[in-house]
């Protein structure tokens, strides 16, 4: 008998608790009207950035393509007459991309970067294949200063071998003189 009373008491206290919640403000965030502020390093749609001098950063080294766990990045490298490498074509299949950000970590030139834009759902799966012109943007992304060719030890318009930032003159291997 006592346990029956106990059960009824518990039942009523449960009903009362639920009733109180009726008068609380709903905690729902209404998505299209209210967008939750994202962390600055949130990973979304991928872009290809330009260096501060306005040239493509991508040197088509294939590192992003190699590290990609779902093999969604493909490209073909080419070389300009002045010796600078670039991607003849560059393709990301966002239908496969898992937005893991490995490509961004692998990139030696800060060319490939992830943005915070996550709202690019589509009904047509073929429209998820982004070509180079879809990926290229006209800014530097998160890395404003970096220009790979200012530091790379190759001859370019930024200087000859040994003339780059933080670089010493090449050693004359034919001589033992210090």
């Amino acid at each position: 008998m006592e346990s029956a009373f106990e059960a009824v008491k518990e039942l009523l206290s449960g009903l009362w608790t639920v009733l109180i919640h009726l008068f609380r403000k709903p905690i729902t965030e209404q998505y299209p009207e209210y967008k939750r502020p994202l962390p600055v390093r949130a990973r979304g749609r991928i872009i290809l950035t330009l260096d501060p001098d306005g040239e493509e950063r991508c040197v088509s080294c294939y590192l992003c393509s190699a590290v990609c766990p779902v093999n969604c990045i493909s490209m073909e490298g080419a070389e300009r007459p002045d010796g600078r490498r670039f991607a003849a074509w560059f393709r990301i299949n966002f239908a496969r991309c898992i937005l893991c950000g490995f490509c961004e970590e692998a990139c030696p030139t800060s060319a490939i970067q992830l943005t915070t834009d996550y709202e690019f759902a589509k009904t047509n799966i073929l429209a998820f294949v982004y070509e180079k012109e879809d990926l290229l943007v006209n800014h530097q992304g998160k890395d404003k200063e970096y220009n790979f060719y200012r530091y790379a030890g190759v001859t370019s318009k930024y200087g000859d071998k040994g003339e780059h930032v933080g670089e010493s003159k090449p050693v004359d291997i034919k001589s033992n003189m210090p």
Partner: protein
Amino acid sequence: MLLWIAGFIILLVKLTIVLGVVLFLAGYLVWVERKFLARLQVRLGPNRAGPFGLLQPLADIVKMLTKEDTVPDGADRAFFLLAPAVVALTALLMFSVVPFGKDITVLGQRVPLVITDLNIGLLFVFAMSSLSVYGVALGGWASNNKYGLLGGIRGAAQMISYELALGLSLVPIVMLAHSFSIVDIVGAQQKYPFILYQPLAFLIFVISAMAESKRIPFDLPEAENELVAGYHTEYSGMRFGLFFLGEYVHMMVFGGLLAVLFLGGWRGPFLPPVVWLLIKIFLVALFMIWVRGTLPRLRYDQLMTLGWKVLIPLALINILVTGAVGLM
């Protein structure tokens, strides 16, 4: 002959109005349930289709009608296609004995505001309630699906055991009103509603009614997290919709029966009788949703223990006590 035709037309008009109102309200009961349950869970509920999501039932119906109507391989085709109709039809038929007002006079004719005043109205309700078990059990069995079969078996076992408590809890009401006719039972509550005489019967009836309409905490036949969707796992489109409709009409029918048998039916001050009946049905429905938002599902053995070892003995004692008091 003319009288017969007039009576037929009046019956048709009453049928149309009641069917329309019941189906409309069943559709909006879904909206009320989703909205109210959401607020109990500190959510907002549907609010996209129309203002406050009021067009949500319409959107649901359009969705269900346009979905493909699939029949699984190896299903017993005839029973599979028939079962949802049984559930929806029996639930709707139960409404035909619920009175919703005093008799009115149209063109010198007395028109009772009930579709049929059967002198065995209560028995008719129980008969229909028992028949709806066939819809559940056959639907589950004909699906040729183990979840469907388990759900159907559970549904049959649960509804048969709770029907006894349901029927026994109403025997004292019949004893007090000296009639099986629901119109007479409402008439007997002229002074006081029967809930004041029979609180125990009221309690037993509420619990068994919740079990009969397969609502949480008695929704074992369709337990989502064990049986996918139980007896209607394999149903799609409007056939699933009919099961759904049946459940919500059932909710309204038991709201109506509760109002008629214990809360004085259409009686109430100031407002017209039909409005009072609807208010009572609505309050019962809100209570059922409130309980759904609170209680977890019972275990199968707890369900059976509650039915056979608690509710049926209590109902029998209640009958004996009522009889003894009546003899004194």
